[in-house]
């Protein structure tokens, strides 16, 4: 039997409550999409393209939900203090729900599109190209050797952290150099670092050293270029952004 025009499920025949539910569902999808594309690309992706800040869209959506819940369910929570608390909790968790669900979904797509990445490529996302240099150092130095690293201060954020370098190069022993140290460490190797970390570049070691050989890391080919019998003099290398190793001359 055909339905009459009065009974048909058209938008104009729907009750106001149903219309609001549909509107909120569409809004949810819209705000979710904004968060999803932001998670999939980079922070400020949506702002740079459409001048929309996802966090603000989430808050607006959160307020709409609170209004909806207040107008429909306030009899369930009659106390004003609890109503305010519930509102505050909702304004925190609704944006969290949007970002969490979008990040979780985006995670699948990101992983699926990068399923064949090597471990170095994944690590590169966090510490940059340094991963290849650290792996080169690990390949080059003897496991039972002592390596001197830059002092634990900026700009040597990674290379100046004995804990970080030690974890990467284990079982190599790593000691960071102290700024006020007069006598050079009797290390087997010195790490050459031009780490800048946003600060002006500061080549290290910034003092001369008697060397058996200097190995400069070639970033493009992931190999070391050796300079046998050449002592380390920082003035010779300044401004060249060199990274590598100094094999010290043991007396």
């Amino acid at each position, binding site marked *: 039997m055909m339905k009459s025009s009065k009974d048909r499920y058209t938008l104009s025949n729907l009750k106001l409550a149903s219309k609001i539910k549909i509107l909120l569902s569409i809004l949810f999808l819209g705000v979710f999409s904004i968060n999803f594309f932001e998670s999939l690309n980079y922070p400020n992706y949506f702002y740079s393209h459409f001048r929309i800040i996802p966090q603000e869209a989430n808050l607006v959506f959160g307020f709409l939900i609170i209004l909806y819940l207040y107008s429909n369910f306030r009899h369930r929570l009659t106390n004003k203090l609890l109503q305010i608390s519930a509102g505050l909790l909702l304004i*925190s968790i609704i944006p969290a729900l949007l970002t*969490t669900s979008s990040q979780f979904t985006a995670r699948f797509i990101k992983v699926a599109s990068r399923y064949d990445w090597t471990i170095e490529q994944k690590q590169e996302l966090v510490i940059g190209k340094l991963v290849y240099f650290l792996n080169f150092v690990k390949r080059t130095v003897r496991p039972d050797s002592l390596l001197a690293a830059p002092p634990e201060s900026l700009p040597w954020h990674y290379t100046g952290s004995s804990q970080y370098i030690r974890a990467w190069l284990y079982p190599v022993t790593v000691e960071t150099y102290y700024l006020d140290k007069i006598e050079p460490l009797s290390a087997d190797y010195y790490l050459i670092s031009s780490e800048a970390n946003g600060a002006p570049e500061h080549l290290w070691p910034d003092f001369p050293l008697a060397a058996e050989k200097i190995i400069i890391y070639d970033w493009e080919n992931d190999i070391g270029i050796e300079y046998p019998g050449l002592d380390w003099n920082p003035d010779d290398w300044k401004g060249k952004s060199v990274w590598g190793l100094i094999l010290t001359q043991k007396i």
Partner: protein
Amino acid sequence: MIAELLPIFFFLGLQAISLCLFVLNNLFKINLLQVPVWPFWVTLAGTLIYFSSKRSKFVLVTLILSVLFSLPAFWYPVTDWDAVTLFDFRAKILMQTGQISDVLFRAKISEYPLFTSLIHFFIFRSNISSPMPLYALVYLFFGLHLYSLFHRILNVRTSLLFSLVILLAPKLFEHSLIAYTNLPYTIYLIIGTFYLYIWTNNHRRADLLLGIMFCLSTFWIRGFPFGIIPIFVAVATRIKSRKIISAILLLGGLIAIYRFWPVNIKLLLEVLDFIKWGVIKYYFPYPLIFVLTLIYQIRARAKNWFMPATILGFWAAIILGNYHYALTDPVFARIPDALQRTVMFINPAISLYFVLLSTNKSKT
């Protein structure tokens, strides 16, 4: 019942694996590389088969959710600083030497217990290249555990909603892909607190035991004292005399003052300022929700004071702990992120307090 047993098995199973490895090497001097991992996996398979025979649909849903949560996590390597330099590093040393004594140089075991490091080791020994799924699964099972506990007194829809409210507390989801100890610490503490809260209502010995076990488990994850607070408060709720409770609180206050005497007021104010912007402002509006809910509890004369007293105890411990740390480190406020991570359990605790009170269950 199965809905609750499965997460209990998961969480206490993790504790059992790590403690077992620790005891085997530390007490019986067995090299960990000689310890087979298959008995653990056989036990897991056997348990799942047993649970399936009882409630196959629930086990199937849990398995599907587990795959869904852990699958993308397999892609991620360990990259976060503390994990690279400590938690995962210790597991990598163990993979080479099999001796716990070889990892002790890195950090004090009392401050940084071996829980996650030994689980990482167990994962690596099982030929799984990344330990990251552990954290995704811990997050998922936290949700399942909360659901099962709410479902004891509430219907399915409300239980799911309340579990979601707690799961969405700040930082928890973010930490499901960070190999730090903060997420497991938070989860064991909150589950333990929840069990103890239930015990204050029903006085079932099993809930008390589980609450104590979960709270004590936190000491094997990080060397923080928060786990003792819910246990202490739960015991205090059994003391009927107000005089005795007042005397205990007074004694505790006097011991704290004696411990930190002479109090450096300037430093204490600096610590309070650090907590104000580092925690209260950062986690706003959760602290305000706590205050409003507390006022409601007082006005409504709700009788069960376990949750608010526990949360107040957490705040007191946060202040005292930071003051204690500030005495030894003059630049104590340089890593607010570390403090925020450490105390991230405060938000799910506040959410839990709110939802429990709003269901009127605390009035009884």
